[in-house]
């Protein structure tokens, strides 16, 4: 025996915590020592009793819901507390994901405070969409599947494109609620990163060029065409984000001709 305490040795032996040499040595000892053999039997019985009488517990469903809900709200507020310099450009570019939101009325677009509130919503929506099971309601890389899915769900038909050839494939879409109205959310990808696209009609047909903001560590673009107002929010690098926005605007222009 290595130490004088047989119970310690025995427990370590039964728990499989002795190395092979000590294990062999202890097994030899067990054959010779009636006291230790008796203790072993008692320990084995104890272990069996514990497992029979003290069950592992299952977390109540109520707790599962509580935990998930609190995590999501905490994660949301963590994101909104993030300040741009704290994130760092390089990490943003690496973990790029992109939300394009085509949003809102011109009143919102021209009201700075309302716009900030909207960008908050856009960002929240982006974060929420990245959680498991929240990204898409319709999953398809075929825009002819995604576009009709919105029929009857929205009072407009969103523009849906596939930029797979340019490296921004379509993943699907879902409904969102932004600026007090339902909007279309479209999801694109960029390499391993996500791109979400949301859009809704512009109310007065006033156009607005792309505006960009850095919001809580994310990159947001927004513009208004005669048809739609768009918002883009992303942690993707600005070069790729702008490229994506340019493609979208060009596709929109071409579609109007």
């Amino acid at each position: 025996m290595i130490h004088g305490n047989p119970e310690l040795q025995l427990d370590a032996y039964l728990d499989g915590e002795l190395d092979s040499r000590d294990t062999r040595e202890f097994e030899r000892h067990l054959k010779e020592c009636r006291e230790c053999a008796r203790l072993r039997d008692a320990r084995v019985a104890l272990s069996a009793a514990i497992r029979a009488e003290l069950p592992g517990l299952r977390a109540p469903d109520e707790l599962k819901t509580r935990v998930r809900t609190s995590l999501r709200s905490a994660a949301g507020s963590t994101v909104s507390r993030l300040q741009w310099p704290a994130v760092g450009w390089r990490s943003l570019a690496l973990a790029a994901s992109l939300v394009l939101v085509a949003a809102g009325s011109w009143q919102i677009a021209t009201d700075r405070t309302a716009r900030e509130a909207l960008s908050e919503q856009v960002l929240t929506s982006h974060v929420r969409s990245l959680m498991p099971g929240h990204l898409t309601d319709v999953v398809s890389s075929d825009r002819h599947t995604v576009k009709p899915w919105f029929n009857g769900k929205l009072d407009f038909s969103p523009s849906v494109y596939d930029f797979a050839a340019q490296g921004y494939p379509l993943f699907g879409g879902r409904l969102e609620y932004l600026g007090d109205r339902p909007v279309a959310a479209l999801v694109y990808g960029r390499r391993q990163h996500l791109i979400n696209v949301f859009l809704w009609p512009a109310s007065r047909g006033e156009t607005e060029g792309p505006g960009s903001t850095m919001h809580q560590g994310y990159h947001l673009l927004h513009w208004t065409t005669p048809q739609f107002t768009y918002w883009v929010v992303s942690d993707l690098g600005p070069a790729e984000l702008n490229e994506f926005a340019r493609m979208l605007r060009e596709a929109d222009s071409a579609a109007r001709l």
Partner: protein
Amino acid sequence: MEPNELGRFEAIVLPHLDAAYTLARYLTRHEHDAQDVVQDAYLRALKYFEGFRGAEGGDGRSWLLAIVRNTAFTWRRRYQQEAGAAEFDEQLHSETVAEVDPESELLGATARESLHQALDRLPPEFREVIVLRELQGMSYKEIGEVTGVPTGTVMSRLSRARSRLQRALYVGQEGR
């Protein structure tokens, strides 16, 4: 936190919700307290997730249970749920337990006690090693990670906790 991280975080910690609840339940000995502790612990874990990712190859279960454990101990201190219980003293408690001789305890015992009651009466530092070893099947090293003590301490606490429980079991058997 980058948004993708919440998904990653949930994938790492949510599978251990039952284990977290079990530990919290045995440590607090109250269902509602256990739920509050678990919720609190998950929020703390979210906050510390950056640190966990820093430790490459880290085990999500040990990491999470360590937070659950510390949260439960904080609660205990805050709400005095072990009111009247002496602060845990490694030496004192260990010696008390070491004195226990199963046979003399057996002969001297007059009351039969269930294993569950016996576990509840253990100091939480002993209770947790039983739960982590017997119910979660953790190694001494993992238990050490959760409880923040060296492996040797895990070994001696576990052995002494079992000796105490064994007394209850002997009494139970003798009562037939």
